[in-house]
């Protein structure tokens, strides 16, 4: 039997992701990689994969896979009805795994023991939707080879982790490099009110809708480097929170950053959901 997973239905958007392409931003290649790194890493640990093994990032459920051999799989992140969650299970050859639509959260990570083995591009198997690098999003009929990125079998086979919230998400922010480009009250507005998540959000960023942040300083900002978590404010005054596929450099001022460890939870925000940004107390 061949160690493959057959994609019967890809759902709205399923991509292959790993840790991305760190170190190449100097030549205009963004890091990309799993949006919710904590859930991705947990999935690999639960099936005993080496760090950096490629997994599937399933957006809004809908993925249907058929195992062509006995394969150990797990899902983490957004819980999809119909799939075993936070605990590995063996799919028997011929068995079908069907991921329903998650009730909370947006992105589910499906890891298979051995990792998904698609050809790496610049050292990574991640799809970068902005940089157009890496494998295409999955389509029905794709056969995914399962690789050999196995580590020792894990000591833990069930993980107790908090589910993504369906209610208001509160995350911590710290000042960004261009906070002084904004009106004196902008920071207080950003960190006291709440924002809704816009429908145009994707792996590049979460569009926040709420009180506009007024700029005090006019003129163009020469492009500068960005990292995920940046709250970039275009002329509309509505911030965009950058996720994994954010542009390497950007030309709009960054008023603040969501602290790195909270960005994972931001990547589980769904359109319409509420997010509260609060200044980190040190």
């Amino acid at each position, binding site marked *: 039997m061949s160690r493959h997973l057959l994609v019967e239905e890809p759902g709205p958007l399923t991509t292959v992701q790993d840790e991305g392409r760190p170190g190449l931003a100097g030549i205009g290649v963004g890091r990309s990689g799993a949006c919710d790194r904590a859930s991705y890493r947990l999935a690999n640990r639960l099936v005993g994969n080496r760090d950096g093994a490629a997994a599937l990032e399933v957006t809004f459920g809908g993925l249907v896979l058929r195992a062509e051999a006995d394969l150990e799989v797990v899902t983490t992140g957004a819980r999809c009805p119909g799939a075993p969650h936070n605990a590995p299970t063996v799919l028997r050859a011929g068995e079908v795994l069907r991921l329903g639509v998650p009730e909370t959260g947006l992105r589910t990570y499906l890891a298979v023991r051995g990792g998904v083995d698609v050809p790496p591009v610049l050292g990574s198997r991640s799809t970068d939707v902005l940089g157009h690098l890496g494998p295409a999003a999955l389509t029905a009929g794709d056969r995914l080879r399962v690789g050999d990125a196995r580590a020792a079998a894990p000591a833990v086979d069930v993980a107790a982790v908090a589910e993504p919230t369906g209610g208001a998400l509160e995350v911590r922010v710290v000042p960004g490099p261009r906070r002084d480009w904004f009106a004196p009250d902008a920071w207080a507005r950003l960190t006291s009110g709440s924002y809704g998540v816009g429908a145009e959000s994707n792996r590049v960023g979460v569009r926040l809708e709420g009180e506009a942040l007024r700029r005090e300083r006019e003129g163009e900002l020469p*492009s500068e480097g960005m990292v995920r978590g940046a709250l970039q404010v275009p002329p509309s005054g509505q911030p965009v929170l950058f996720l994994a596929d954010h542009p390497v*450099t950007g030309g709009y001022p960054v008023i603040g950053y969501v602290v790195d460890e909270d960005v994972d939870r931001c990547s589980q925000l769904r359109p319409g959901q509420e997010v509260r940004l609060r200044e980190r107390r040190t």
Partner: protein
Amino acid sequence: MRLRPSGTAAVLVECEDLDGVLATYAAVRAAVDGDLVPGAVDVVPAARTVLVVLDPRTSTPEEVGGALERLDVGTADAVDEEDADVLEVPVHYDGDDLADVAGILGCGPDDVVERHTNGLWTVAFCGFAPGFGYLTADEGTWDVPRRESPRTKVPRGSVALAGEFTGVYPRSSPGGWQLIGRTDLDVFDLDRDPPALLAPRRRVRFVVAS
């Protein structure tokens, strides 16, 4: 060194001008390669800044900032002698905006070509797309406004001008730069190591394609 806060996973270094960026990038890159900046995973030069990205699991912005402040940027040459070999980029100067650019600069199309090919350029930084370099002229400054309405599709290999920069589109994409020509040289090739010909600090000479 002027540092600005950039969240918990990066430190932004502010520079006076592009020359300052090139010198700072050289110094920071060498320090990172020499393991003098613990936790640094990426160095991103841009128009007036150099961003140092760190792994928040292994270091903090304060630690990286401290290491950066100990660097002596003054002694670093903007262009590494080892990198100083000049890349020749052959260009067919038949771009759709060549006449417009000549009009903006108050000269003829031939003068634009002569100016573009006369003298060296240096890749100051990359961005916009994988392998897209922002090249700045070693002598004499350019100042060409972007097109008022960007094109939805600029063909791959287009050689273009905007602001003080020239660049080569590594693949077909939307774009607002003024197109003066095209090259057959593949400036970004995933099957080549390194994939980007126009990496920061690379010296370039444009020549008229035969």
